[in-house]
């Protein structure tokens, strides 16, 4: 049943698969990103209360939605690597960590930019904002641990343990922060309760979310290829590839 999957446990085959998939992800994400961004930023109707500045939603929401997904994808890769001892999954997890951290940062910065005019403040200690900040800290911890070891395989195993501990903690952190906020009864929030959007605003948003997902896929593939090459730099096929690339 799993026979078709086995060849991809070889770094060489995975590298080739990543190379084949990369242009598809890259081209489709660029096209969708252009469509979604132009439609959302230029043609979607302006909002009643927030006028034009609501348009940052087209960057903020995709980044925020997917930053959490990237962490789950990273944790899945780590789990695969631990359970089935697939070293390539380590490379995938290492490839995803900085992408997730960047997305979380984008979500926080765009959120602050959006919050300044609409809430009158760039930062509130709201449940969702705080839990995203902590998510960023978790990402930074994983990246720091990756960089702390000289041996890449060792770094991946250490960072993997931290990633899984983080997965256990993410729901705890999320609910603790939510309850913490309700306990303190701050006067903000409820602005987050999803406003029902008109379809002219919703479609570009959905397109952008898909475009972001494909872009993350493309970036992950690029970084995955680099990781595979770096981890296998002593193998003949990598050296053959380097020779081939060097000639033209």
């Amino acid at each position: 049943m799993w026979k078709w999957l086995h060849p991809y446990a070889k770094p060489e085959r995975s590298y080739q698969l990543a190379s084949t998939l990369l242009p598809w992800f890259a081209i489709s994400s660029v096209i969708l990103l252009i469509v979604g961004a132009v439609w959302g930023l230029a043609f979607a109707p302006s909002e009643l209360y927030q006028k034009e500045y609501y348009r940052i939603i087209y960057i903020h929401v995709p980044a925020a939605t997917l930053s959490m997904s990237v962490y789950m994808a990273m944790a899945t890769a780590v789990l695969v690597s631990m359970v089935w001892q697939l070293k390539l999954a380590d490379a995938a997890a290492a490839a995803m960590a900085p992408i997730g951290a960047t997305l979380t940062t984008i979500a926080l910065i765009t959120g602050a930019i959006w919050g300044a005019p609409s809430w009158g403040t760039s930062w509130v200690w709201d449940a969702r904002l705080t839990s995203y900040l902590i998510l960023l800290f978790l990402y930074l911890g994983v990246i720091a641990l990756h960089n702390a070891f000289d041996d890449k395989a060792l770094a991946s195993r250490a960072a993997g343990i931290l990633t899984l501990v983080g997965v256990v903690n993410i729901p705890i952190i999320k609910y603790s922060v939510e309850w913490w906020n309700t306990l303190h009864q701050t006067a903000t929030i409820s602005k987050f309760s999803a406003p029902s959007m008109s379809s002219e605003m919703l479609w570009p948003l959905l397109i952008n979310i898909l475009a972001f997902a494909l872009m993350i896929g493309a970036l992950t593939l690029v970084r995955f290829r680099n990781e595979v090459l770096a981890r296998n730099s002593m193998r003949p096929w990598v050296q053959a590839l380097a020779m081939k690339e060097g000639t033209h």
Partner: protein
Amino acid sequence: MTPPTPLSYSQLFFKVMNRDLKVAIHNKGDILNPIIFLVIVITLFPLGIGPETNLLTRIAPGIIWVAALLSALLSLERLFKNDYIDGSLEQMLLSPQPLFIMVLAKVTAHWLLTGLPIIIIAPLLALMLHMETLAYPALMLTLAIGTPVLSLIGAIGVALTVGLKKGGVLLSLLILPLYIPLLIFSTAAIEAAALNMPYGGHIAIITALLVGAITLSPFAISAALRVSTN
């Protein structure tokens, strides 16, 4: 040669714990310094924000808990470090005894040396910060249940960084985010108690964190130690 009689789990636990306690008692500074650090950090807050009694009363639970987190962080580093340097950690990993029990014993010893003194000194610190009298039982209870969680979760971070030369700053980056839920629930419980409101729910959650940490974190610590000693 006859093989040595196998140790029971409790024998193993107490042997490892006693060893750690004995080693620690020889280096008295290791026990005292985190406590002195805790007291100094708490002294800094009234100096930094002014000695206004009402303000201190309000923020006392937060200050005491944050200071407890930081002093735990400071003391955690030596949990595995010396054993790693002199090679006894490797012997532990190679021994046929279950690592789960040995790790749990080491963490317990660490808590007895650092968590327990915090609990003992906490009422004095609360007095210095003019904490609400009603909140004292809650403070003691949250510290009693919460400080073992600090040791257990922190040990994961220490185990991951023990092989590194500059693990100190990295350690704080790794485990402080994981301490956040504990900090939130503990201070919330103390504040609820100060308002004479029921705080059993918070205590229940902290206890759940403790139970979860006791059962799960030794696995993570063992895996991390195996990575670090390679």
